[in-house]
């Protein structure tokens, strides 16, 4: 099993790579090169930080074209994590307005906080209601806790097999469309629940 973590210079990826190695993935590499991503069995798009900065780096390094070919045309399995999940959507209002990769019909906006009673960012473990058709949550029962840390969230009216979480409002905690999955939370920081979820991505996508 070869998993390539897309490296576009944003944030920390050590936790993700060491979790994959712990789960027994034999080959875990970081790269943004087409040739290396083309050889991956699965791709992970990580990311923390600002959406607009991330998109700039992605376009600059032609990662948008690489992923469009490998993921959209050649159907290679992809998991987006946190900001990496948001980037798969249409757009974000972070730092004005930025276009996303547009693989998934979802838009990213700041958490609504009309009564100013929510602390933002949304930080900590929160419960997810898994979608009935989900593969990511196989063998995870109930409403499992996952670790979130973000100020912007995705909403979608499309049919993307979304599993929802609530913080003031309902938002997309994860989605699954064919070979593409995205999780707003950090499975690599979510104890056994996260390990199981990543194992499901490895085994079932």
């Amino acid at each position: 099993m070869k998993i390539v973590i897309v490296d576009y210079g944003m944030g920390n990826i050590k936790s993700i790579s060491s979790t994959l190695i712990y789960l027994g993935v034999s080959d875990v590499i970081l790269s943004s090169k087409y040739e290396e991503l083309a050889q991956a069995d699965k791709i992970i798009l990580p990311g923390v930080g600002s959406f607009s900065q991330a998109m700039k780096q992605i376009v600059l390094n032609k990662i948008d074209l690489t992923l469009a070919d490998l993921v959209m045309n050649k159907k290679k399995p992809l998991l987006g994590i946190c900001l990496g999940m948001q980037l798969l959507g249409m757009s974000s209002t972070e730092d004005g307005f930025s276009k996303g990769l547009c693989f998934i019909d979802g838009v990213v906006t700041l958490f609504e906080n009309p009564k100013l009673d929510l602390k933002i960012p949304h930080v900590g473990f929160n419960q997810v209601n898994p979608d009935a058709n989900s593969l990511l949550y196989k063998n995870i029962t109930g409403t499992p806790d996952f670790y979130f840390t973000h100020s912007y969230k995705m909403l979608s009216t499309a049919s993307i097999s979304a599993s929802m979480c609530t913080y003031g409002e309902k938002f997309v905690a994860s989605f699954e469309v064919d070979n593409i999955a995205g999780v707003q939370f950090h499975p690599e920081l979510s104890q056994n629940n996260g390990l199981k979820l990543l194992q499901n991505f490895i085994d079932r996508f």
Partner: protein
Amino acid sequence: MLRKRIIFSLIYSQSFFTQSRNFRLQKVGNLQWLEKNYKFQDIAFSLDELVVIDASKGKKSISEFANMISQLVNDVFIPICAGGGIKSMSDAELLFKNGADKIIMNTSIYENAALVKELIQRYGSQSIVASVDYKRLNNKKEVYISDGTRKINLNLEEYLAYIESLNVGEIYLNSIDKDGTGFGYDFDSIREVSASLSKPLIIAGGAGNEKHLIEGLSIQGVSAVATANLFNFIGDGLPNARKTIIDSGQNIADWSKYY
């Protein structure tokens, strides 16, 4: 529903983990001692987060600290927040590369707002935790930086307003008076400031047993309770405390439930 969190803080100084009391550090043991007495691969299931602070007085070696972090975090699948002496983008980068998921900053928050802004732009506000050390004198709450050695000219309320204006992700509020005493948190001060904060608040300083953690968690504006007491939670201390806290009805994640 968003859970509240229990955080364990490790205070590191010159190659040793220490027990701090009112910011006076007592050496307890090195990494081998820690791994023998606190198996984080197991204990992590009683915690929601680990904070590791380099409190070495005077000059700190970020590279040595980062090296220790990289050894500490193997096979620990909870967020790790690390800091102490971060003065530049490259200091922060070194910690992130060695396994920190967030960084905690104190003196540079006060002295270098430009650095904080640059870090937020690169890593996002949720990656930056502002550490605030304070003492209570009569009814005034004074803020200290540089490991508790230098008083600043803002009181706690003014300083917290400044921090919120920087848009850092979380605030780690530590009472120097209560630090390491085990007498309980500085509940009066916490209640005075917590309600008005718009950022998640982690409280630290004084927790000696699970009753203190429960009392802290039950304050509305508190998002997380931290303890750095290496002696009171040794062995099964943390798993037992978490069980007691869950049984008391506090809203924290229950890892045992699904397995």
